[in-house]
């Protein structure tokens, strides 16, 4: 079994902590993993993506081929659309609905939503609002990870919770708890939209 994920957003939004949790769980489950990241100039507020590949068999390429991506997981709605040519015909988009506007020509949100709705399998969530609802305002990315867990077959949600516990453990139990609360809320929203 293999799942290829493009994680994306804007430099500084924190897509890499999502990748770190998935990576921990994959390693714990003895799965193969490759995760190509973007460092350097693009991190300064530009578009960023990470190609995350998880498999029970050895993985060769660090990059996902065009048309080979199982899910696009995005912290920003326009960024989710940037990688459409990579998405499999029956692939999923799981995205935050909150635009990050740091460019003057950011398109109208209605147009973005219309384009997202054309995709067969989409989960759209206001990750920030959901995070606030469960008193975890700084864990919006874990809400997105929770929603991703609702369609991610290769890793059980419990394993991702263990991942959160381990990745955030050194920051203290309170931080672990708020991140798990955010994850669970996202998971529930994901299941409802599936």
């Amino acid at each position, binding site marked *: 079994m293999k799942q290829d994920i493009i994680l994306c957003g804007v430099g500084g939004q924190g897509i890499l902590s999502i990748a770190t949790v998935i990576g921990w769980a994959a390693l714990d489950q003895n799965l193969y993993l490759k995760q*190509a990241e973007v*460092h350097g100039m693009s991190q300064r507020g530009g578009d960023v993506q990470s190609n995350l590949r998880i498999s029970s068999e050895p993985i060769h390429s660090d990059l996902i081929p*065009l048309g080979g991506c199982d899910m696009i997981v995005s912290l920003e709605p326009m960024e989710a659309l940037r990688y459409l040519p990579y998405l499999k015909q029956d692939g999923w988009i799981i995205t935050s609905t909150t635009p990050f506007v740091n460019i003057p020509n950011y398109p109208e949100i209605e147009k973005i939503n219309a384009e997202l709705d054309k995709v067969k399998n989409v989960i759209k969530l206001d990750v920030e609002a959901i995070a606030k609802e469960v008193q975890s305002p700084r864990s919006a990315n874990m809400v997105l990870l929770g929603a991703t867990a609702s369609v991610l077959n290769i890793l059980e949600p419990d394993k991702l919770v263990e991942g959160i516990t381990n990745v955030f453990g050194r920051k203290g139990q309170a931080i672990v708890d708020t991140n798990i609360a955010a994850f669970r809320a996202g998971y529930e929203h994901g299941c409802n939209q599936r």
Partner: protein
Amino acid sequence: MNKKTLLLGDEALALGAIHAGLTGVYAYPGTPSTEITEFIQQHPLARERDIHSTWSANEKTAMEAAIGASYAGKRALVCMKHVGMNVCADAFVNSAMTGANGGLVVTACDDPSMHSSQNEQDSRFYAEFAMMPCFEPSSQQEAYRMIGQAYDFSEKYHIPVLMRMTTRMAHSRAVVETGDVRDENQLHFPENPRQWVLLPANAKVRNVQLIKDYAEFEAQSETMGNNKYIDGADKSMGIIACGIAYNYLMENCPYGCPFPVLKISQYPLPKAMIRRMAAECKSILVMEEGQPLVEMRLKGVLDTPVEIKGRLDGSLPRTGELTPDCVRAALGMAPLPQGEASQVTVPRPPALCQGCGHRDFYTALNNVVKPIESTRVFSDIGCYTLGWLAPYHAFHTCVEMGASVTMAVGAANSGVHPSVAVIGDSTFTHSGMTGLLDAVNSKANVTICISDNLTTGMTGGQDSACTGKLENICMGLGVEPEHVRVIIPLPKNYEEMERVIREEINYKGVSVIIARRECIQTAKRHAAQMKKDSTIPNLKSPQRQ
């Protein structure tokens, strides 16, 4: 002792070096190589062993310090991005002439597609040029394993080894199984001391020996196991896949490649293996990341009996990094079904952070110099290069590390006024100081602006070599103290900043304006650290021990 860890290619290489008995890493930050040194700086065993890992002023000082460590019998590592090879080229090429005593490995991380760089140069050319072996791992696991092998090779054949990586592997994580830990070398001096004194009489002898040794390096490329000939039934084509190109090939051949494949991870090229492929196959497709070095070597000038395909004949794109998709097309396979690109998305280029001091400096500079049509502003490499974009459009050139100062001098010599340089603090100590000395000695009419954010910003906030020393360095180089001016780039100071800039442009001679305010990214990190330290007084962060 074997343990599985999730590591970036950079980190796998760094850990491999520590486990191979490293005594010192010497480097200047540069994408995509920075994480090698950072990993060593934070690794517990490296701390326990007190492995040297302080940043060097530039790649040349790094390379030279590592040659010194090798002379002393220790294992040393030099790391840089590809363009750093140009800075250290003198030391690098001559290190093949001195040879190595303790193992000496130079890691160059190339950046095809220029994700964070100004060119696409391929470091393998440097190895060939210097007659040095070059290792090019194709995976994170190989990076971990091959650096240990590179140290053994370096000591066995008394030659530095170039490790070449590219962005995609340097910055991709994978599971790496680690091995045993070797002790550091004892201090010991070279057996042949004459070789380390490159007087012509000694160097001539060494040059002949190096050419002889190179034949042995070629023999090792055939037998060491890093280059593999994997036979295939379909001889209509043979494939040479260098470094990570092998991964893209196998991605497209999940059930095995029907063609014979030569996987290359060690240079000089294994000539016998290539001759076998040429004898058995009708054509050869060369897949290599970066520039078409192997393809050019195979093609030469005259026609070959075997058709050679690759980046030069258009089978693969001439520029940019390889992808699974372009390799798929070169294999003649149809693309996977894919959706159409969205028509709604617009580019989102990187930009200076909100609240960054470079922004305020550029605003003030623009207010003074933009109305003067004859102004030319020469800038440099760093975050502040983003000031070329809207809304600032603040300068006219950016070439390479340090060129702002010297280009401003050359332009001033040629009659340009105002001739202004904009350079960051770390870039200034990397390669700007000598240019400033030229400016002083030639009494050039230039205004050198050092936008000092007290860090090496673009690569993520590493220490800057001149923090706390900048004014003294400028005055020590001969700039008159009254023309070393310091301003604080904040919106409330625009009036004063503009007055200072105007005064120094009007001064006929060398002036230095230091615009100093801490990078907001490192300032945030320092504030968080201080808060943590004050609330949990007993919990010491490991980074601060």
